[in-house]
């Protein structure tokens, strides 16, 4: 990590502080917790709070929401204590947008192909797309890997463990 850079404070303390704060990771971490807490605390009472003796279903969610808001404020406050230049990176040094997209698309494709195409196409699509996320991935290697996993997956999950999902289907028509 770099050492603290003083010039940020030269615009006056309050200005510098708020500017620093907006760059801090913990500031957003606290903010997210406050958001979650508020959703719980504001929505909780609609499930009826009850009394302390006869607690309703809304009691604990509301209480937890309030606690989380307090924790969120505390986390955001700790961002003030961190010197400028530290803990500012929310994204990693080299963001892997393609890889992240591939990893997240993979379960999506599993849902789509699993619902409309069966286990084999779902497995192939899921593994193939996920493996494309790696920088060193080649087309051939990905296809070979996906094929191996598909064969193995169908054998293990369809025939050995008997998961009720057809291997291959097309609308009304299905194999196995």
């Amino acid at each position: 990590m770099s050492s603290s850079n003083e010039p940020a404070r030269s615009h006056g303390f309050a200005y510098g502080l708020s500017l620093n704060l907006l760059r801090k990771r913990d500031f957003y971490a606290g903010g997210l917790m406050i958001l979650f807490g508020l959703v719980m605390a504001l929505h909780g009472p609609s499930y009826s709070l009850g009394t302390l003796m006869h607690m309703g279903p809304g009691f604990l969610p509301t209480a937890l929401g309030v606690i989380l808001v307090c924790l969120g404020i505390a986390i955001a406050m700790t961002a003030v204590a961190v010197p400028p230049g530290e803990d500012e990176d929310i994204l990693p040094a080299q963001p892997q947008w393609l890889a992240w997209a591939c990893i997240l698309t993979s379960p999506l494709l599993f849902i789509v192909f699993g619902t409309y195409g069966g286990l084999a196409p779902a497995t192939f699509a899921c593994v193939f797309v996920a493996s494309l996320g790696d920088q060193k991935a080649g087309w051939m290697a990905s296809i070979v890997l996906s094929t191996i996993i598909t064969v193995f997956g169908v054998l293990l999950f369809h025939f050995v463990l008997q998961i009720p999902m057809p291997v291959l289907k097309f609308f009304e028509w299905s194999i196995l």
Partner: protein
Amino acid sequence: MITTAVSDLAHGFSVIIYDPNAWGYLSINLLWCFIGVLIGNMVGVLPGMGPLATISILLPLTFGMKPVGAIVMLGAVMYGAQYGGAICSILLNLPCHPPHAVTCLDGFPMTKQGRGGVALGVTVMASFVGASWGITEMVFLSPVLVRIALQFGPAEICSLMLLGLLAGSTLARGSPLKGVAMTVLGLMIGIVGSDIETGAERFTFGLTELDDGVELIALALGLFGVAEFMNSVNQQAEINTKYSNVRLRDMRPTKEDLKRSFFPMWRGTIVGSLCSLIPGTGPTIASFVAYATEKKISRTPELFGTGMIEGVVCPEASTHSSVQGDFIPTMSLGIPGDAVMALLLGALMIQGIVPGPQLISQHPDVFWGLVASFWIGNIMLVLLNVPLIGIWVKLLTIPYKYLYSSAMFFVCIGVYAANNDMFQVGEVLVIGILGYVLLRLGFHPAPILLGFVLGPRFEENFRRAMLISRGDILVFIERPISAVFIALCALLIGGQIYFRLKPKKKGAMPGADSVEQPLAAE
């Protein structure tokens, strides 16, 4: 006391080994135990795969099994991974498994000197001794704890859970404040679904699929599968297998090695078992404390980091004794110390077994069978690790691109198989994104699982305690046992604040935060 322990243990062994109806009188549990340690050892060796993700993937496959077999296999993955993790640390200098990060410091220099085989050999020995001690502790300590815990009313259970949750979140890695926030978030996720007492649907957002709550497997796979893959894809260090050519005959330690590692091994074991008694301090902290202790009492502390055998043996023994010891509060009190234990507890609950002090008397097969399986599993691991070391070393070279993409399939099919419901695959996706955002914001998601598993029981007992005390919140400090737990909670929070505000001494004790340190060292 010893006679009952021996007869209980004998019962456990008979559950695991003997089955009058099976072919050859060998129980199927023996096979589950073997599969468990094999898979555990494998994922332990593979950089970038953890026991958490593996156990969650295997969890749905255990639904069709008997409870004993299921818990024996899942538990075996946990301690099997510890044996494999050491190989990864010593030969490759990759601290991919936090409990073994500290082993890199002296293990890898030994490998560079051509003594990697010896390091692995003494590690297996130390692991077995540490684990055996942890198991012995479990045999004798659990019944004592149970006898105390059976007196507990709802108020005591509640404050004990509070202590467990606080310790689990503040003593683990990273900022304690964020840890507590994660626990609260976990408790909240546990609230989603129908209320136990009134049946009111809470935070389901109109989705009927959420009526039964968020699926444990979806949560675990989202946080420790998808989010973890997003975090480590394309971030893998170049694997350097230049030094990792180890054969069986290299593993034999000399007399000098054995003499030097004898006392550190026992010291590590003791440190590990002490750490496992404090809820929340898992194997990671135990190994760091053990390393620091060993360095402090050594006559040549300046040589640590240059390939001292003591620096390998001591943390490894303590990791293993702590891993086995962690099962004590989980199985005898129903209070898990870390995320893996929470997952195992969840597995028991799915099997219809209510965790808590009544578990040992109601399901002696499960408890004593598990204890016996530890011993059998550890012997299997020694046998697997010594002659087959060459195969494990080969596994180290599997590239990450093959690992995570195949794992994505197992994540999807695993969570689908849990209920045969595609909705849950979507749940994994959403939780995975949330988990990655939390990781990037500096949160460690492990306490979420702790809160999630304990949440419903906490709420139930809290409500019951309030009902019995007629709405008097002071009941928690009026009942003496409960008051002790509350006082410990206060001590924990006070201690954390005190250590945060006190200016840090440089180079005092290596905390769990310095896990990244060995990576930078090379």
